């Protein structure tokens, strides 16, 4: 392009500044907050310090919700992967001219309030709702067993809410696959299942990696599902951080727990990407 050499900077500047001031710098503020002396309060002010013991304290006190968040998010991501792959595969290879419409239908629920959809699950899983009734009639559940306020309900909510984040990247990478490669496998006497395992699945790995990350990361930080569909026994780390900030006002602990969550997630993502062998992806 033959425009002025500075045009690029000027175009990038406003958005870049916004992200620098309100996205990058806040991480430093969070880090500073997490090292505050917890003796202070929001009202009297904190002594800025380097109290690394805060991390040990929150880990001792809140390792359960942290571990629970990672477990729930992990299980939900696996279920999303199975359901999402099925849906993305069906749209990419079996839907014919209905492709675009089906894709729009995948995105459509995403445009309806997250909270209202989650409350709707509360109704579906309610004690006198049709699912509990049906399971009790089939004797798969005892008379007094519940679905609400169990890990099952929270994980079901997470699966539901983050499924589109799995489907879209999976679809994007499945759609790019050259159908002739799968045909070639068939011509060389590979059974359809073998053709899928040896050709389609490996070629869709970038979508699998992107989809699992886009599902796992928000699911691990979510606390809406745990709050609305679970009980205090299903509290996730997000619930704890939120309460520490707004109810207890313990900014130092909240900051430390937030930093810890971010560090754990970044570490897991890096190991995962290395294992999945798609470093060129990022």
């Amino acid at each position, binding site marked *: 392009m033959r*425009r002025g*050499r500075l*045009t*690029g*900077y000027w*175009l*990038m500047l*406003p*958005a870049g500044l*916004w*992200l620098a001031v*309100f*996205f990058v*710098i*806040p991480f430093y*503020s*969070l880090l*500073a*907050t997490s090292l505050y002396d917890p003796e202070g309060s929001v009202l009297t002010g904190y002594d800025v310090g380097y109290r690394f013991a805060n991390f040990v304290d929150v880990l001792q006190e809140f390792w359960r919700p942290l571990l629970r968040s990672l477990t729930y998010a992990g299980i939900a991501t696996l279920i999303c992967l199975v359901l999402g792959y*099925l849906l*993305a595969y*069906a749209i990419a*290879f*079996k*839907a014919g001219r209905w492709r675009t*419409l089906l894709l*729009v239908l*995948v995105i*459509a*629920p*995403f*445009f*309806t*309030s*997250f*909270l*209202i*959809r989650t409350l*709707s699950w509360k*109704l*579906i899983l*309610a004690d006198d709702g049709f699912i509990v009734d049906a399971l009790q009639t089939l004797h798969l559940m005892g008379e007094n067993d519940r679905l609400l306020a169990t890990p099952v309900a929270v994980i079901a909510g997470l699966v539901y809410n983050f*499924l589109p984040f799995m489907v879209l990247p999976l679809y994007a990478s499945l759609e790019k696959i050259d159908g002739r490669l799968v045909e070639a496998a068939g011509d060389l006497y590979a059974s*359809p299942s073998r053709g899928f395992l040896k050709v389609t699945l490996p070629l869709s790995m970038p979508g699998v990696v992107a989809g699992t990350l*886009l599902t796992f990361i*928000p699911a691990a*930080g*979510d606390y*809406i599902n745990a709050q609305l569909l679970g009980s205090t026994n299903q509290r996730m780390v*997000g619930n704890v951080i*939120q309460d520490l*900030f*707004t109810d207890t006002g313990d*900014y130092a602990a*909240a*900051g430390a727990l*937030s930093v810890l*969550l*971010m560090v754990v*997630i970044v570490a897991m993502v890096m190991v995962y990407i290395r294992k999945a062998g798609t470093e060129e992806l990022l």
Partner: protein
Amino acid sequence: MNGLQRASRWVSDHIVLAGGLLVLVYMFVPIAIVMLMSFNDNSESRNVYAFRDFTFSNWTNMCGPDGMCESVLRSIGIGLAATLVATILGTLAAFALVRHNFRGRSVMNTVIFLPMASPEIVMGSSLLALFVSGGFGGRLGVVTIFIAHVMFCLSFVIVTVKARLSGLDQNLEQAAMDLYASEATTFWRITFPLVFPGIAAAALLSFSLSFDDFIITNLNAGQTVTFPMYVWGVAQRGVPMQVNVIGTIMFLISLALVLGNMFATRKKA
């Protein structure tokens, strides 16, 4: 034998499609229930999780519950403002990233992905930490919500517009220039109309992200109540059925807009 093979082929072909459609149906069950409950008459009962009687009164008396419509209007206002700013800044940035070579471009390309890959609770608490340490802890409200919303919408706008812009055939612009169109004329008559569907999609996405955000907003809102915060508040004591009316309207409007954008894009492409 051939018939049997063909039959098993047919089944395996359609099992995948049926499975996929079943997943899609599953995605719509909660929305169907929201629509159904918008016609629920629960005036006789305190149980908001069961359908009692059919009524239109939730629709005719939409703003019945205290504070609900105010929160909806507030969310719409914040959503429009955040969308406007994020769409303009994001579109400029997308042009910079696709059309210009500048130092730091690859860093920016990475930075714009990070907000999409960070948990909301971490972004929300970081921003709160910034506001509090900057002395704005007592002044959280509409402005801090707006700042947060522009921040997380920007990435989505940049990515969406970038995708449209890099798929653009630059020969069309070359042709316009060859026919003695000035740079400005070429931009407004050729480039902008071709990129517009991407910008429209980005704006739509921004608005719904902003309107729907809860986790980041809740941390940075102070005493201000947006619609998702209203729903969160009433969820503890019993949701008025009118919430389902708002949910239904949101769903129908966004479906219409998404379908409209899809057909518009298809016609132009």
